[in-house]
C-alpha cells in the first residue's frame, strides 16, 4: 500500500504536464476546453505534435514507436492529456488498428502501415457495426468473396465515426457463410478511395455529423490486405475490443468539465449568491466529485492488475460508471446553463449568451451515446454479472 507516486513517476507526470500545456497548440486546447468541434486539421496537427514527441503510440511495441511504459504511466499519460485539454491521438489508429497490425499483420503490412498510422498520414476508419447487428457484432452480413487474388466486398457498415475523413477502413467481413457465425469472419483493410466505397453522413440528434454509413458495392480489395489468416477475424476483433484497458473511462475529461462547471456556476446569479452557492448545485457537485474520485482510484486499481495484457473484468465497471458520470456531468452543465441552453444554434455573432451555455445541450444529447457504443452499459452489466459474479 503506497499513496504517493514514486519520485520517478511523479517526475514523469510533471514532464508530461509541462509538455501538454506548452507544446500543443493553444487553439486546439482552447477548442477542447470550450467544447467546440475540432476540425480535421486540428486533430491531425495535435496528433502529429504528440507523435513527434513520442507520445502518440506509447503502448505499441517499441519497434514501432512504443515506449514500454508501465500501466500506471500510461494511465498518467492519458489523464494528463485530458486535464490539459489535449485531444488524445486518434483512437482508430493508435488503439484499434495499429496494435492489431503489430500483433497479427505480416511484416509487409507492418512496414507499409504502422509508421503512417502512427503519424496519422493514414486516417483510419472503423468498419465493424452493421445496421441490424447492434451489440450482436458476430451477426454481421457484409461479405467478401475471393475472385482470384482479390476479395470482392459487398455490404454496409454503420456508425463509422469520422468516416468522412477516412483514408482507409478496417473492416470485419464474412468470408465463409457456411460455418458458425463467429468462425467465418475475416479482417480486411480497405482503401476508401476504391471504386464502390460510398460514405453517407448520418445526422445525429444534436445536429452533428460525426458518424456515417459506409456502403461497399463490388469493392475489389487485394488479398494482401487481409490481416492474419482467413476466417480468423473474430480473434483480431476480440483482441481489438479487449485492448482498451487504459482510458476506458474518460475520468480526466469529466473531472475537468466538472471543475469548469464550478467556474461557470460562479458567473450565474441565484437567490443564494452565485449558483455555486446554491446548496443543491453544490451538493450535486460534491457527490459527482466523490464518485469521480472513486472511479479514478478504481481505474488505478484496475490498471495495476492488468499487467498481463488481458483486460481486467473490472474494466466493465470503468466503462459503465465512466459513461454514467460523463452523462451526469454533462447534464449538470445544462442545468447550470439554464435558459441559455436553448441557444444551441447561436454563435458569437448572433448571441450574447456565453459559449458554454449554448454548447451544453448538444453535448448532453450527443453524450447519450456514451452508454451505448463501445459495448453498451447493458453489455457491461452482462459481463459483470457473468464473468465476475458467475450469474
Amino acid at each position, binding site marked *: 500500500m503506497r499513496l504517493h507516486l514514486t519520485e520517478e513517476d511523479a517526475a514523469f507526470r510533471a514532464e508530461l504536464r509541462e509538455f501538454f500545456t506548452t507544446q500543443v497548440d493553444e487553439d486546439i486546447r482552447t477548442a477542447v476546453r470550450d467544447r467546440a468541434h475540432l476540425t480535421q486539421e486540428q486533430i491531425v496537427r495535435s496528433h502529429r505534435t504528440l507523435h513527434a514527441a513520442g507520445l502518440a503510440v506509447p503502448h505499441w511495441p517499441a519497434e514501432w514507436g512504443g515506449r514500454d511504459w508501465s500501466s500506471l504511466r500510461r494511465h498518467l499519460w492519458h489523464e494528463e492529456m485530458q486535464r490539459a485539454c489535449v485531444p488524445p491521438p486518434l483512437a482508430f489508429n493508435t488503439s484499434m488498428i495499429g496494435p492489431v497490425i503489430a500483433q497479427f499483420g505480416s511484416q509487409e503490412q507492418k512496414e507499409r502501415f504502422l509508421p503512417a498510422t502512427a503519424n496519422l498520414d493514414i486516417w483510419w476508419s472503423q468498419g465493424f457495426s452493421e445496421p441490424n447487428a447492434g451489440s450482436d457484432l458476430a451477426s454481421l452480413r457484409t461479405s467478401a468473396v475471393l475472385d482470384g487474388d482479390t476479395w470482392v466486398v459487398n455490404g454496409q457498415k454503420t456508425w463509422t465515426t469520422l468516416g468522412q475523413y477516412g483514408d482507409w477502413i478496417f473492416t470485419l467481413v464474412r468470408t465463409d457463410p457456411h460455418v458458425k457465425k463467429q468462425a467465418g469472419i475475416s479482417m480486411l483493410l480497405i482503401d476508401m478511395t476504391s471504386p464502390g466505397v460510398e460514405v453517407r453522413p448520418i445526422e445525429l440528434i444534436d445536429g452533428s455529423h460525426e458518424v456515417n454509413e459506409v456502403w461497399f458495392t463490388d469493392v475489389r480489395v487485394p488479398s494482401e490486405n487481409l490481416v492474419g489468416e482467413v476466417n480468423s477475424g473474430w480473434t483480431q476483433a476480440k483482441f481489438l475490443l479487449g485492448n482498451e484497458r487504459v482510458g476506458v473511462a474518460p475520468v480526466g475529461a469529466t473531472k475537468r468539465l466538472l471543475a469548469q462547471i464550478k467556474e461557470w456556476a460562479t458567473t450565474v446569479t441565484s437567490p443564494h449568491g452565485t449558483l455555486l452557492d446554491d446548496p443543491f448545485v453544490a451538493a*450535486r457537485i460534491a457527490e459527482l466529485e466523490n464518485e469521480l474520485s472513486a472511479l479514478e482510484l478504481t481505474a488505478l486499481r484496475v490498471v495495476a492488475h492488468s499487467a498481463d495484457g488481458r483486460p481486467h473484468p473490472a474494466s466493465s465497471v470503468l466503462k459503465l460508471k465512466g459513461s454514467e458520470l460523463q452523462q451526469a456531468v454533462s447534464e449538470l452543465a445544462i442545468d447550470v446553463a*439554464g*435558459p441559455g441552453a*436553448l441557444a*444551441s444554434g447561436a454563435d458569437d455573432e*448572433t448571441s450574447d449568451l456565453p459559449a458554454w451555455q449554448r454548447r451544453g445541450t*448538444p453535448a448532453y444529447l450527443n453524450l*447519450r451515446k456514451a452508454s451505448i457504443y463501445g459495448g453498451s452499459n447493458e453489455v457491461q452489466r452482462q459481463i459483470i454479472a457473468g464473468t465476475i459474479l458467475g450469474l
Partner: protein
Amino acid sequence: MDFTYDEEQVALREAVRGLLGRAYGDFENRRRAVADDPGYDAATWGRMAEMGLLALPFAEDDGGVGAGPVEVGVVAEEIGRVLAPEPYLAAVVLAGGLVAALGTDEQRAELVGGLASGELVPALAHAEPGSRWSAEATAVTAQQAGDTWTLDGVKEPVPFGASADVLLVTAALPGGGTGVFVVDPAADGVTRDGYRTPDGGRAARVHLESATGTPLGEAGVDRTAEVAAAHDATRVAAAQQAVGAMQVALETTAGYLKSREQFGVPLKTFQALTFRAADMYVALELARSLALWATMVHADPDATPEEKADAARRAWAQTSAAGRHVGQEAIQLHGGIAMTAEYSTGSYTAHLTALDHLLGDARHHLGLLALDVAGHGEVDPLR
C-alpha cells in the same frame, strides 16, 4: 374529483389529433418543417387557427372562444404527441395569455384577435442573459419621456423571437417593478438574430436600442405578478405537452422492443429492458396525474394565484423530472438508432430537455418548493 374529459373535450382531442396527425404523423414532415425558418409550417398554423385552437383560452369579446386550461391542455398534449413545432405554447399560452391579462380593449382586440385568426404571431421577450426563470426584468430598462417609452438592452433567448410579428418586451420600470411593452419588431432600434434551439425550435436575441414600446395596459404599473402567472399557465400546458411526448416516446420504445431482434430473439426477451420500460410507464403516469390536476386547479375559478403558482410548480417539477427519465431511457433502450436525427425518439428527448430550459428544470422548482416545506403539514391535492 373527476379526471375524465367531457364529450366536447373528447371531440376536440380527436379533431386536433386528426389535424396534427395529418401534418406530422409522418416524422419526415416534422423534420422538413423545422429545417427552414420560421421553424414550423405556416399552413398547419393556419389550419390550427381555422379550427379555433389559437382562440381557445381567450374571451369571446376579444375574438376568442372562451374555453380554458382544460382545452388548452388537450391541444398541448396532442402537440406533444407529434412534436408539432408550431409556437402554441410561446404564442398562445405565454404571449397571448399576457395580452389577455393586461391589454387594453384595443390591444386585446388587435393582438388577441390577430393571434386567434392566425394572422399575427406574438412572442414574449422576457429572458435576459444571466437571468434564470425569474419573473422580473432587470437588464432591459424602460425610460419614459412624455407619452413615449423607450427600451434598451438585450433579451435572449426569446422563443420564436425572430419570426414573431409583434414582440411583448418586459423591462425594468424607472420606478421599480417590471413593465410589459408592445414593440414592433420592424421599429428603429430593434435588431433580431434568430437561431435554432436543440429540439428544432427557434429562439432569438432581441437587441433594443432606444426602441419605442407601447405599454401593455396601463402604463408604469408593475406586472411581475402577471408575468409570473403567464409562465405558470405555460408550465401547466407544457406539462401536458410533455406528457403527450413521453407517451409517444414510451410507445415507440415498447414497439421497438417488440419488433427488434438481437442475438436471434426480440429485445423484449431481455427482462432488464422491459422492467426499465415499466419504470418509464410509472414515471409517465405519475406525471400525468399531477399535470391533469394542475390543469384543473388552473381551470378552477376559485383558485387563488398562490394555489395556481403552487400547482404549476408541482406539476412541472414532476413532469420535468419524468421527462429526463423517460427521454434518457427511450434512447438507451433503443440503442444507436435513437441517436440519429432521422429516427423520432431522440427528438422527443431533445424537446423534453428544451422545455426544461424554457420553464425551469425539476431541481430549480424543487428547490423553491423546499423553501416552503415548513409552511404546511400534509400536502392535500384533493379539494
